Each structure stands twice: as C-alpha cells, then as structure tokens.
C-alpha cells in the first residue's frame, strides 16, 4: 500500500467516500464486523466525553480542554491496532487512543483539571503522558523503539504529532534517528489543517506532510484520516512492517479539527464557515455510521440509547475527578526525585512552619 499511494504525487489513500460507501471493496481491510462496531462505539464514546468536557469547561468545572471533535477515526483505528505490549506516545488530541490503551477518563479529567496525579495513568501501561512542548515527544518514541529492538520485544510504538508539530526540529531529529536506527515506530501526523490559527500552508511548503518521509528513508503515506477503514488498513500495514523489523513508517492522517484549538480559542478569527461546513460533511462518525447502517450492522435509532449510556459513564468519571482528594503540600515536592533531597525537605518544612503559624493565629 505504501508503494501504491505515492505522496510525491499527492495521492491519498481512502477506502470509503464521504458518504461511507466503499470506493473499492478490495481496499477494505479484513476486520470483523464486531470490531468495526466496537470502533464506532469508541468514537462515539470519545466524542461524548469530548463534548461534555467542553461544556464542563464552560460551566467552570474544568480548566482547559483541547477538543478532538472530527478527528475520532484516527485514534479509534490506532486503538484497534495497538496490542497490549505496544506503546502509545501521544500528542494531546487522541482521546480514543488514550482510552483504548486503558487510560481512565477520570484520570484524563484530572490532567486537564490541573492535577499531576492524572498523568500517572496507573491503568495504562506503556503509555507516556502527554508532552506539552510540541513534537518533543517524538524522540521519546524513538528511544522506546530502540529499547524494544535492544530487548528483542515484540512491541510497536505509536507516536502522534500535529501538522504544526512537523515544523519543530524534534520532528526532524526523531524521524532521522528512526530511519537510521530502524526502530518499530509509527509516526502519525494528525493533519487537522491548523496549528491554533496557523493553516498548514503557512507551516510548510512541502507538497503534503507524508512526503517528509523521503528525507528519512522511511515509507510514508497520506491517508484520509476521517475514513476509519483507511486509517485501520494503513496502521495495520505499518504495524506489520514495524513488527517485522523493517523499521519506522510515517502516516499523514488528513482530518479537521471541528472544534476550537482549546476551550480558550476562537476559531472564527481564522477560518470560515464554508470551510467548517465542508469538513462537517466528512465527519468520520457520520461516515462510519452510514457504512454500518447500510450493512445492517446497526440502526440510526441505536445511537440515542448509546449516547445516553455514554453520558452517564462520562458523568460518573467526572464525578470521580470532582471528588478527587485535595492536593497536599507534599504532592508538590515528593515526586521530583526518588528520595527527596535536603533542599526540598527544607523548603517544605519552611512552608509547613508558615502554615502552622497561620493556624496559631486563627
């Protein structure tokens, strides 16, 4: 597949059209119907959580949140392809992949709600918490991939980055090391057309983002990121490639951020209604839903109950977050080193003394 869809010619791999019809049935990956349904559910669950997060934020119950709206197919496909021994090195807009890896939604809320305890993700092994500095996570993925080879393990590393992230030096250095070291890393660019307000055409003059693979001697492919099947097929092949010891792969997943950059962003400043409408028609959930309905694998009316159930689940998780025990002074200090150095103990003690003095005053 990687040879067939040449990014130098700007070809894009698609399996479904915008209406959810198969373009060519032979392109459809061999995936059991039930798995497709599960993926659809994961996308719906992620979207429910996503929309609710935005509204929690509006209610002042959440600090900030980066909506995934419109990008759910990518994470869902990755979620389906990743095996338990695989690693996930996320950017920050792959909620479905987090969940698939075992991350509890309540932990995710904790992160965005402003508590480091969330990023421990105790239930999600082989999952690195988000690195906020854009693209700086990619070298980590390569290092993990190197360790996988060194330890002769059977793992693949799934590493995410945004279109804006491709401009950072760390993108380049990571992919270059990945090429030389032949590491089992799949780099997934979620090209959602914008980096905050900056459109891709101001980000790079390259034909597309997949061609950047040429610079590193690794295969690259441009994929319709709103097409679950295309993403699934591309990731499946990439994972096989990596697992066979053939090294890294670059996938550009073409998609659109239908929401704001984060809850503090105002997209009307930099994009048009038309653009938003055009992309709304390519909504990955609508497309997969149409496919499933056409095949009789589900009914339109199923959604209502499903979404109602998901809403309750999200509420439950949000309650866990909201009732999380308060932050303690020692939480500021105790995770910086295995054993707290004297300097930190001294600083904590000084603060405690101050707190005690206030108690005395009261």
């Amino acid at each position, binding site marked *: 597949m990687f040879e067939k869809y040449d990014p130098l010619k700007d070809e894009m791999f698609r399996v479904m059209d915008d209406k959810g019809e198969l373009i060519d049935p032979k392109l459809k990956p061999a995936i059991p119907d039930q798995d497709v349904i599960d993926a659809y559910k994961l996308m719906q669950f992620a979207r429910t959580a996503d929309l609710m997060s935005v509204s929690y934020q509006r209610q002042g119950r959440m600090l900030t949140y980066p909506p995934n709206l419109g990008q759910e197919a990518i994470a869902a496909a990755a979620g389906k392809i990743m095996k338990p021994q695989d690693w996930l090195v996320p950017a920050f807009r792959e909620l479905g992949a987090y969940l698939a890896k075992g991350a509890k939604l309540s932990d995710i809320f904790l992160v965005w*709600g402003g508590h480091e305890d969330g990023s421990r993700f105790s239930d999600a092994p082989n999952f690195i918490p988000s690195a906020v500095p854009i693209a700086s996570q990619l070298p980590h993925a390569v290092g993990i991939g190197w360790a996988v080879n060194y330890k002769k393990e059977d793992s693949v590393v799934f590493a995410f980055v945004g279109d804006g992230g491709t401009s950072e030096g760390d993108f380049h250095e990571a992919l270059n090391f990945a090429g030389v070291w032949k590491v089992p890393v799949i780099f997934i660019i979620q090209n959602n057309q914008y980096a905050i307000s900056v459109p891709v055409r101001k980000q790079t003059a390259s034909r597309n983002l997949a061609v950047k693979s040429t610079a590193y001697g690794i295969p690259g492919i441009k994929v319709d990121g709103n097409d679950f099947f295309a993403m699934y097929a591309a990731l499946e092949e990439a994972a096989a490639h990596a697992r066979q010891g053939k090294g890294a792969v670059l996938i550009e997943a073409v998609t659109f951020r239908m929401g704001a950059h984060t809850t503090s962003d105002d997209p009307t400043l930099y994009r048009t209604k038309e653009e938003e409408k055009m992309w709304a028609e390519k909504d990955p959930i609508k497309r997969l839903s149409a496919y499933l309905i056409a095949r009789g694998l589900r009914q339109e009316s199923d959604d209502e109950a499903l979404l109602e159930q998901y809403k309750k689940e999200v509420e439950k998780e949000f309650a866990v977050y909201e009732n999380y025990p308060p932050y303690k002074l020692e939480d500021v200090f105790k995770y910086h080193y295995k054993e707290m150095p004297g300097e930190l103990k001294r*600083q904590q003690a000084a603060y405690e003394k101050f707190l005690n003095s206030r108690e005395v005053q009261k």
Partner: protein
Amino acid sequence: MKVMTMVQAINDALHIKLTEDPAVVMYGEDVGVEGGVFRVTQGLQEKHGEERVFDSPLAESAIVGTAVGMCAAGLRPVVEMQFAGFVFPAFNQIVSHVSRMRNRSRGKYFVPLVIRMPYGGNIRAPEHHSESPEALFGHIPGLQVVIPSTPYDAKGLMIAAIEADDPVIFMEPKQVYRAIKQEVPEEKYSIPIGRGKILSSGTDITVVSYGAVVREVQRAMITAKAAGISVELIDLRTIYPIDREIIKESVKKTGRLLVVTESPGSFGAGAEIISIVVEEAFLSLEAPPTRLAGFDTVPPLPKGEHFFFHSPERIFYEIKKLYDY
C-alpha cells in the same frame, strides 16, 4: 489619559514602533491573524500589513534564529515565544548567537532583537504554561532581561527594548496582562533598561521584587503597615544588567533585605540580589538578607499552585520574621 491594561500598553508600544520605524517587524506563532494567544499583537497586522506582522511556522529555534539573520541585515525584529515554557527549543540560538554575535564579530554585527514572552504562573494553566526562567537568561552574557510589572512600565520599557541595539529578553507577567489598569500616555516615551524603581519608600526593610509578584508584595505591605513595619519596595524592572545602586542605597538605609521572586530559589535571582547586598552593604546589615522564592520544583498544576505562588500572607510572614530578627 487613557487607561490601559498591560496587554494594551504593550500593543500600543509595538504599534508606535511599527509606525515610526520600517526596520521593525514582528512574527511568531499566531501573532499575525489571531493577534497572539493573549491578543498582545491584536490589530497590528491589519494596521501594518502582512509583511510587517505575520505568523511563522511552529518552531522556536528558527523564529529566533531567523531574527538573528534579520538583525545582521539591518532589521529590528520583535519575536514572540508563545509562553516562556516554550523558549527552550530556541535556547541554543539565544545562548550561542543572540547574545554573542556582537562580541564574535567585534561589533560588525549586532542583534537589536526583542524576544517577547508571557511568563509566570498562578493563572490555572496546564504544564509548561507557568514558567519563570529569568534567572537562566540573567546568567547568559550579552543579554538584557526586562520584566515590567505595570502597564506604564511595560510600554516605556518595550519602546526602549526595541530601540536598544542589544538583545532584550522581554518577559511579560501574564498574570498582570489584564489584571490591572493604569493611566498610560498615548504618546511615545521610554523607560531606561537597567534601572529599578522605588515603589514605596520605607525605613525598616527593603523588599526587592519584579514582575507579577510585586502586586502580592504590595498587598502584604498593607498588613505590614498595620503592624508598624515600614517597607521600602523596589521593583527591579530589569534583571540584567541589574540596578546595583538602587539596591545598595536602600539596604544601606534599612539594613534588612527580602527578595521575593516566583521562580525556583536555588541558583535564582534571589541569590544574585543577596550577593550584591553582601558585596555592597555588608556592614549595614542588621539581619541576614533573605529570599522568598518559588520552591525548587516544577510549578504544580492548578490544583496545587496555591502552595507554590506566594500569597500576601506568606510574604508578610517573611517580612515579619525579618523585622523581628
């Protein structure tokens, strides 16, 4: 006079310099169309054109590095790091070139560059959005490090920074951005880099501070005054080159020094200021010069940030301790 926030005051300074000097250009992530995530450059692209104020790709090292080249070619760029926590990819360009080009070329090339960055915390932000790395810049020869605490100072210092023939790291306390308003002249004025300011005169204790935490000190001073402690408050405004004189004169008078900073204490600005005082006013000291700094930790995420960022209570507690020494 017009009442302005710090965001407006800086915007005003940028607008003035864009208007009067065609060598001034401005870019960075989201600074053009959107006007910056804090809207500090809002409207400037409309007013001065896409050629003068524009969005760049997402790459801090190149933002700073290209600016070094522009300076060599005679321009005076003003670039933005979206947050101080994201300046580190540009660190090599700053340490190796911004600060050194003049010395390396023995004055043939110099770098009249302003690197703006919102810094500091206590605004309930995610990781990497609350950093105060000013002490790192203070240690790098060849830089000037400016940190205003009010809209008025921000405008005057920004004008001075753009006009300076040497690079300025211009750190904007984002906590102050919209938190206070002040009368700010609409015309052009500048405030010299390297000079502190006595915000209140006092006789018992000198407090040296800068940036957002100055306001917390002022709040603490209300309590101090009530307790009969006369505090002299110095807003440094420039971290490097530091205003040795103003610190020295004050401590010679009061005999007591408290430095209040929000960044981690160890190897921080407090240590530098204490050393200056020890060097310049040792015999006047009536108590050990003291620093109230951030912990030697990453700024905790919002649920824990109240422990890290200084409350007026904590500041008063330290003032009192020093007074009672």
